C-alpha cells in the first residue's frame, strides 16, 4: 500500500523558476524523507524532516511538514535543468518499513 502520495504527478517548469511538490500520508510518522531519482538511476536521499520539525532547509531545497494535515512539501528554488528527475517522499510504517509514494516527475526546461 502507498503511504505517501505525491502531487502533482508531473510538473514542467522553466529554468530559474521554483518547483513545489506535495506529499500526503495516512498514518502518524516519526520522520519523512525526500528522495530524487534521475532517469535510469537509483534513488538519492535529499533530506529528512522529523515529526517535531516544521521546516528544514538544505541548499536550494526547502521542506515543510504539517503533521496535523499529514502533509509535506518540497520546494526547489531557482531550478536548473539538472534538477530534472522524479521526486519521492517516503515514510516508515509501524513495522519500520519505508513506504514510497508514486513520485512527482519534474522537468526543468533550459
Amino acid at each position, binding site marked *: 500500500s502507498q503511504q505517501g502520495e505525491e502531487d502533482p504527478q508531473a510538473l514542467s517548469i522553466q529554468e530559474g523558476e521554483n518547483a513545489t511538490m506535495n506529499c500526503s500520508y495516512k498514518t502518524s510518522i516519526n520522520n519523512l524523507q525526500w528522495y530524487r531519482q534521475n532517469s535510469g538511476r*537509483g*534513488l538519492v536521499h535529499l533530506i529528512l524532516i522529523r515529526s517535531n520539525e516544521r521546516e528544514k532547509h538544505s541548499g536550494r531545497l526547502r521542506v515543510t511538514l504539517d503533521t496535523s494535515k499529514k502533509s509535506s512539501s518540497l520546494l526547489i528554488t531557482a531550478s536548473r535543468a539538472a534538477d530534472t528527475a522524479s521526486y519521492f517522499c517516503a515514510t516508515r510504517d509501524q513495522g519500520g518499513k519505508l513506504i514510497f*509514494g508514486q513520485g512527482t516527475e519534474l522537468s526543468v526546461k533550459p
Partner: protein
Amino acid sequence: EAGVAQSPRYKIIEKRQSVAFWCNPISGHATLYWYQQILGQGPKLLIQFQNNGVVDDSQLPKDRFSAERLKGVDSTLKIQPAKLEDSAVYLCASRKAGTGNYEQYFGPGTRLTVT
C-alpha cells in the same frame, strides 16, 4: 567511499525462465534492502536483511522469489520462474545500522524485462 553496486544493469528473459541479481552494499552497512520498482511507481520493499538475517520479507512473493545474504555482505535476489508482471527495476539499498541513521543508499538498479 564506493556506492552500492548492482549487476547486471539490464536483463531480458522469457517468461518461465530464471534470473538472478547481485548486490554489493556499501562497506560496513549492516542493513540491506531489495526493492521492486514498476514503471511509474515508487519502489516497493521486497526484503530487508540485518547482517545475514531476514528482518522483513512480508511483501516477497515467496513462491517465485528468493533472496539470500549468506555472509552478511553481498546479496542475491532470484526469480524462478519469471512472469510478465515481474518486469521492473530491482533496486538494492543499504543503510548503516544505528539509531538516527535513516538514510538509505541506493544502487543503480537492474532493469528486468520479461517477454
